């Protein structure tokens, strides 16, 4: 105990924390993959001619966006067993975080889709393209570049929100740091190291995303 930094202890716990970092990255990766796909489903569902579907999806997205992720994690994890459906911490965590961010990504996609010029749609109609081809080959490829910045921000966002998964026992960074803290009664090193690991990953990632965004825009001839 005390505020003196213990280097021997640091070297002892660092491998454990780095190992847990892999789990954190995996959680962020899986969660983001779910969000990328489900977000597109939410975005497209709001563009169908069915008025009721649009309205319902809109409300669901608003609801998910206005309530705390941590509460959603608890909800998904605990409500299943009440109805006889037992989910593991990983499954529940991925569903909760994936669903949460899909609501955010659907808004990013929506912005992207709305930015596609009307002439593009008219050209597709004129060329008699099917709805499927219109979306997959013409509209979505143009909707993605303007959405890239938002998509990148949420990738970093999901990474930073993974510590919340520790509350249901996903063995990621925060969970490991908590375990180290409660067994050794030393909190300074584990929590500080977790902070440094987060910084060391999120700052370069954010910078890389900017570079990638610029690259894609240049590739597609956009400014």
């Amino acid at each position, binding site marked *: 105990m005390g505020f003196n930094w213990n280097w021997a202890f640091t070297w002892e716990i660092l491998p454990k924390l780095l190992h847990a970092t892999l789990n954190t990255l995996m959680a962020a990766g899986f969660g983001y993959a779910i969000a990328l796909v489900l977000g597109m489903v939410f975005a497209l569902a709001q563009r169908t001619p069915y008025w009721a579907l649009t309205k319902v999806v809109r409300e669901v997205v608003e609801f998910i966006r*206005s309530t705390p992720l941590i509460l959603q994690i608890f909800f998904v994890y605990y409500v299943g067993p009440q109805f006889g459906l037992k989910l593991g911490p990983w499954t529940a965590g991925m569903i909760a975080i994936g669903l949460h961010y899909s609501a955010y990504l659907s808004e990013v996609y929506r912005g992207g889709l709305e930015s596609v010029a009307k002439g593009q749609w008219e050209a597709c109609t004129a060329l008699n393209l099917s709805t499927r081809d219109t979306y997959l080959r013409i509209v979505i490829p143009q909707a993605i570049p303007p959405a890239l910045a938002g998509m990148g921000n949420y990738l970093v966002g999901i990474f930073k929100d993974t510590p919340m998964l520790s509350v249901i026992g996903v063995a990621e960074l925060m969970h490991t740091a908590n375990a180290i803290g409660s067994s050794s009664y030393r909190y300074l090193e584990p929590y500080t190291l977790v902070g440094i690991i987060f910084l060391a990953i999120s700052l370069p990632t954010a910078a890389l995303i900017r570079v990638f965004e610029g690259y894609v825009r240049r590739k597609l001839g956009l400014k």
Partner: protein
Amino acid sequence: MSYTDFLRQYGDRFWDGTLITAQQFLLASLLAIAIALLAGLMKLSRNRLIRGIAVVYIEIFRGTSLLVQLYWIFFVLPLFGLTLAKFTAGFVAVGMNLGAYGAELVRGGIQSVPKGQWEAAYALSMSPARRMWRIILPQAFVNMLPPWGNLLIELLKNTALVALISVSDLMFEAKQINGTTFLSAQTFGTALIIYYVLARFIVTPFMRWLERVMRRKLGRA
């Protein structure tokens, strides 16, 4: 137990939790606004050192998780002789975190004020402080209100994390009630709905109203 019975029995605790959440929200918002203003202005400073401090602050708080910051403030700061009560630690962590995000909004808002406004204030030989306070900030304020609305929703949601250091807010009460009743759908469902109502029917309408009032005051209605 029917849902009405459930509400009759636990309604008070949900209410108490909601009040604590509201307090955390208000205090964290005030702190976030103050920090955002300060760090945002510092980031625009011509002095390298002042700018550097603001950049480091913003990057640290935006680059790590709020949960890490919360635990750090609650568990590690006491080792440096600074012990905060859990209630204080809660809103301080949330306020400092969201303040870093807000600082970027303040910076953007100030930079969005047309250059002519700066020049006009200069031509009228206003002091820099007076120019900032009377001319630039009011206009920047109106420009940045819409993103602040979103940020305050984020802040409200983030206050739920203080439950993890045992501040008895809405999230905490929900966890406790769930622990004794095992009625997870009712408990967490009710808490989700309360958060939704707070965000959608209190915070958002208030920000919309503020936007309208401010636009009118600046003659932009």
